[in-house]
């Protein structure tokens, strides 16, 4: 790539999250260290591999838009309900005001809310797609997230689209109290209504997915995949440890153990996700993906 293009790309590209970048002493945005194999990686290279370590396969956290872009056809994503954001319905103020957490999340992530949703195509198949962003108050679900997710299911049902959600979350958002709890029922109801329409819902669980989000729409999908190394559960590992009063077995709540226990369909590396989701959607929508290389006109 010509060096000028690289600079241009650097300007527009939203890089992967460099959480802890300062602690490893590497300049932010150019180099990063893999927490798994400890190798120093060139950021540009990591971005090309969908933020997977080329040496050990560690999956770095990705921001919502990058997750959507990695799945959707190039340029096909059009955001919906971008104006739906969290208020402070309970005027929650314990330890620090909720409004302060929201402002901080908005400033640091550049996002309006913890989930980004919209319309797109995947290999030509019409989808309603959404991705959650852990940088925004731990991708927790309050009224706004619940509303955006519910609307996504409704939009998909009305327009006969599949739903694809890339999910990470710390759970229900404490600062909206019982309103957040009720979003679990709201999103589950929307998912159930969508499901009755005979359209597919595929969820991709990424690290970490917990609490009220796992226990509502996330696992109501027809097909559930998870990224390698993702931790998924209802109760957080520390609480489980306190409950059973002994240390947890290795790999507890890992994506790999969820497959073993029959809770999800497969662990799919990020690089294979798009192909896998496309194939599943094509089956469940009785459609051929529109990728010209994979299928010719006469095949279907």
């Amino acid at each position, binding site marked *: 790539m010509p060096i000028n293009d690289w600079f241009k790309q650097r300007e527009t590209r939203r890089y992967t999250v460099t959480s802890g970048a300062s602690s490893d002493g590497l300049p932010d945005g150019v180099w990063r260290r893999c927490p798994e194999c400890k190798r120093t990686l060139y950021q540009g290279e990591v971005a090309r591999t969908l933020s997977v370590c080329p040496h050990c396969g560690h999956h770095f956290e990705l921001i919502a838009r990058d997750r959507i872009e990695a799945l959707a056809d190039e340029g096909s994503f059009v955001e919906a309900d971008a104006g739906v954001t969290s208020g402070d319905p309970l005027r929650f103020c*314990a330890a620090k005001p909720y409004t302060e957490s929201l402002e901080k999340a908005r400033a640091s992530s550049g996002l309006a809310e913890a989930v980004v949703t919209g319309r797109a195509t995947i290999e030509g198949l019409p989808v309603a797609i959404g991705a959650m962003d852990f940088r925004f108050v731990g991708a927790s679900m309050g009224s706004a997230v619940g509303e955006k997710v*519910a609307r996504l299911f409704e939009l998909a049902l009305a327009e006969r689209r599949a739903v694809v959600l890339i999910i990470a979350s710390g759970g229900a958002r404490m600062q909206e109290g019982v309103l957040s709890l009720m979003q679990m029922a709201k999103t589950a109801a929307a998912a159930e209504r969508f499901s009755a329409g005979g359209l597919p819902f595929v969820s991709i669980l990424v690290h970490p997915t917990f609490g009220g989000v796992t226990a509502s729409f996330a696992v109501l999908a027809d097909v559930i995949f998870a990224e390698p190394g993702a931790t998924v559960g209802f109760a957080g590992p520390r609480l489980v440890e306190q409950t059973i009063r002994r240390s947890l077995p290795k790999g507890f709540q890992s994506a790999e153990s969820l497959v073993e226990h029959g809770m999800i369909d497969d662990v799919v590396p990020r690089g294979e996700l798009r192909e896998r989701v496309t194939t599943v959607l094509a089956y469940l929508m009785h459609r051929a993906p529109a990728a010209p290389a994979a299928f010719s006109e006469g095949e279907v």
Partner: protein
Amino acid sequence: MARFVMEFERPLVELEEKLADLKKIDLAAMPDLAAEITDLENEVERLRQTMYQALSPWEKVQVSRHPERPKTPDYLEQLFTDVVELRGDRAFGDDEAIVTALATLGDRRVMVIGHRKGRTTKENVKRNFGSPHPEGFRKAERAMRLAAKFRLPVVTFLDTAGAAPGLEDEERGQAWAIANCLATLSALPVPVVVVAIGEGGSGGALAIGFGDRLIMLENAYYSVISPEMCAVILYKDAARAAESAAALSLTAQDLLGLGIADEIVAEPLGGAHRDAEAVVAAAGERIAAALAELGGLDAAALVERRYERLRAIGEFVEATGT
């Protein structure tokens, strides 16, 4: 009978005990004691009124957890006849933390689903203190499906600190079990009346905790997280639960204000355990009234109405023009 004393009512209980001691003294021998007793009686009554009439959210949580508070089995026994308990999730086991039963309320046949705390320690150990395992939720979902198939209205009783957070609960899919309850409950073609009788802890309560009518007892709570756990997260100190209880909007009065609860059943001063029978009877009347009202709606209208109710919950900001 030695009764369970909640922390905040200790000053009152001490006065009450002092009064009781005084009353044991032979008044004929000490005539001037009568005036003192009257004074103390007035003082006790004044304290009782002020203390119980303005319970803080955290005090209400304590009342909701009172060991002598009427529990689901009390409601089942007092209000319902011809109770046939249905057991087991048909996959793994029978979780006694949730009871499901065919039961008759007045002349109405219903399906009862409730969290089941025990009355004794032994019962509580068997029932995991009312915190269900995945099997419990799967049993509940089985009962919901039965109710739908045979057109039986559903009455649920909420009283749980939350879903069990154990290792095996996670391995057996606690989140999946709860999510499936939510989905099934949302589309049930029969009336669903929910009664929050004590604790409404998080997803474990919600799994059987929404429907066409939410009746809450005056001191019941319903919360996204326990005040203690919230305090640990916010302040790294469980002892600050009172502050988080106030911030979480978890009382019956809060839920009524937010439009989530529909009505509140009053409790006697001090809590439902002071007159369990009357409270259970009052709840029974509300349940019967709700079932009578909802009985007039057809299945499609019920499901649509329930969906709209859920869709309306939540407050967010929406910028125009996007």
